[in-house]
């Protein structure tokens, strides 16, 4: 037996390229479905976890999926806005606490998330450096965002305009970084968190400018009467919100009408959640309430349906690959006829020769399974980071 294994081993090592390719091919066939299962399992677990941790979402009527994706994962299109009045309305019900969310702006590739201080304990986010948000104009960065933007407390980041072509719309605003969060392995790591009012300033609803009643601002004044001053476009608007110029900032319009992307409602208890949902279930309701778990289950059901097809495809490809590998072995045996005849003529039993060839196949299979197992282990331990890197680097 030792001689059989030895001869098989020597053959495989000598033909290392062929052996390597065979092992790689079989490894891929074995690992691919495992990896797919692993990725889907882990990802769906995390998607469900984040959805399960978010009891109810309120948004404008429209796609529940869009609302859930943007509110939970800050991805996709920003949903249609709803009025800030819903926050007080929910508070008045005494059934839930409301956490406002304002989305749609970015610092580089990182979403600017306008919210309230309640968001941080809700998502179990804690400060790693610096402090929490206190004043408008401040930003607290997720761990990955801080890394990517190379920003730390004391530094600054600049928001991107809503659209490259939006020359008359929102302007970039410089935010002061006051804190960096501990990494959580969730989408919050990518966020640039600001107070909801800061988000409104970024969106152009609030702004700061020179005091128009000050004589030095006369160059910006078009006309003045007893009760109103009309300024022209030359009025200097502040792009930096600092403690020094904060007093010069103001909002236009009624706060109740200011836009939100969504509101996370945290019911006091399960019964309160049901009551709250019931109040907003009417098709005529200006506000839509969504259970993120239901949305995610729906999405994942679709994914898992597709997974079946993918697995069938992988199985077919695998079978074809194995058939090809078998053909390679058979052709290889044909090419080694002289070698086989030599061994038989020297005195080897046909069974021994078959054992040597079979052992070669077995060793390749064992190596492939070990490699697939190793890769599966690596994917289990580091798969999320690897996959995220592959997606973010554009490889996938």
């Amino acid at each position: 037996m030792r001689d059989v294994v030895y001869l098989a081993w020597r053959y495989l090592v000598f033909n290392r390229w062929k052996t390597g390719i065979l092992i790689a091919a079989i490894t891929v066939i074995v690992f691919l479905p495992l990896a797919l299962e692993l990725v889907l399992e882990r990802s769906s677990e995390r998607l469900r976890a984040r959805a399960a941790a978010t009891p109810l979402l309120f948004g404008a009527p429209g796609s529940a999926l869009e609302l859930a994706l943007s509110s939970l994962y800050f991805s996709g299109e920003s949903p249609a806005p709803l009025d800030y009045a819903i926050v007080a309305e929910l508070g008045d019900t005494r059934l839930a606490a409301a956490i406002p969310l304002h989305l749609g702006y970015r610092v580089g590739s990182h979403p600017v998330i306008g919210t309230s201080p309640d968001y941080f304990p809700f998502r179990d986010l804690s400060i790693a450096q610096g402090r929490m948000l206190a004043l408008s104009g401040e930003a607290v960065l997720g761990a990955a965002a801080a890394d990517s933007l190379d920003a730390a407390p004391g530094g600054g980041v600049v928001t991107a305009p809503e659209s490259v072509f939006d020359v008359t719309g929102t302007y970039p605003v410089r935010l002061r970084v006051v804190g960096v969060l501990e990494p959580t392995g969730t989408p919050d790591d990518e966020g640039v968190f600001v107070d909801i009012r800061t988000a409104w300033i970024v969106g152009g609803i609030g702004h700061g400018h020179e005091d128009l009643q000050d004589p030095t601002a006369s160059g910006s004044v078009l006309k003045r009467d007893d009760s109103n001053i009309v300024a022209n476009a030359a009025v200097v608007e502040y792009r930096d919100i600092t403690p020094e110029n904060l007093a010069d900032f103001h909002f236009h319009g009624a706060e109740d009408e200011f836009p939100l992307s969504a509101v996370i409602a945290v019911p006091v208890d399960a019964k309160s959640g049901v009551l709250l949902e019931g109040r907003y279930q009417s098709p005529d309701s200006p506000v839509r309430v969504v259970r993120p778990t239901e949305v995610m289950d729906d999405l994942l059901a679709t994914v898992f349906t597709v997974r079946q097809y993918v697995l069938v495809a992988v199985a077919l490809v695998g079978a074809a690959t194995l058939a090809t590998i078998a053909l390679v072995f058979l052709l290889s045996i044909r090419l080694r006829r002289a070698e086989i005849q030599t061994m038989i003529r020297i005195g080897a039993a046909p069974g021994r020769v078959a054992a040597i060839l079979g052992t070669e196949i077995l060793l390749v299979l064992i190596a492939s399974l070990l490699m697939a197992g190793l890769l599966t282990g690596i994917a289990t331990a580091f798969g999320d980071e690897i996959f995220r890197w592959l997606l973010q680097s554009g490889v996938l």
Partner: protein
Amino acid sequence: MISIRNLDFRFPRGGFRLVVPRFDVPAGGRVAILGASGSGKTTLLDLLAGIRVPDAGSVTVAGQEISRLPDTARRHFRIHRIGLIFQAFELLEYLTVQENLLLPYRMSPSLRPDADTGARLSRLAEETGIGGRLRRYPDQLSHGERQRAAICRALIAAPDLILADEPTGNLDPENKRRVLDLLLGQVAGHGATLVMVTHDHDLLEPFDRVVQMRDFHGAEAA
């Protein structure tokens, strides 16, 4: 050493037929078998090695009628008592020269290296001039070196009988003579019997006897 009586062999699907009424080789003898291509030289060697079995008649080697032995016993006999040298050397490309020399010991669990095997290998390698090549692979050797390695492999288990099938067929004239001398020297040194198939008349002089295949009734079956 060798005794064939009334041997009659046909290939299974018809075609070639070999008839050898009588063929004897004494122990220690050196016999060259001459014949044209397709005359049955290799078939005769196969019958002497026990690789093939005659349809009729007997083949006796070293007192053993191998033609009557079952498959396993014939293999056992062959691997212990007979050394084979092939025209195309037939060294395994993925084994070193040393591993090729020791290949017979890996072909059957019944043949195991003994205390002298290592010394025998070293001596054979030195005497055949490939002592410094043992760690090389066959494709790193010259033709002549490869045939010398094949000769060593055939002798490593100290067989009683060497069957060589055109061992110099792939060599240039200079190496032919050299290898043949080497082979004859080793055979004599080990006290073995040599039956060598060749079609090269220039190499016949050192042999005790030359047998022509046409002396046997080898012919296409009617």
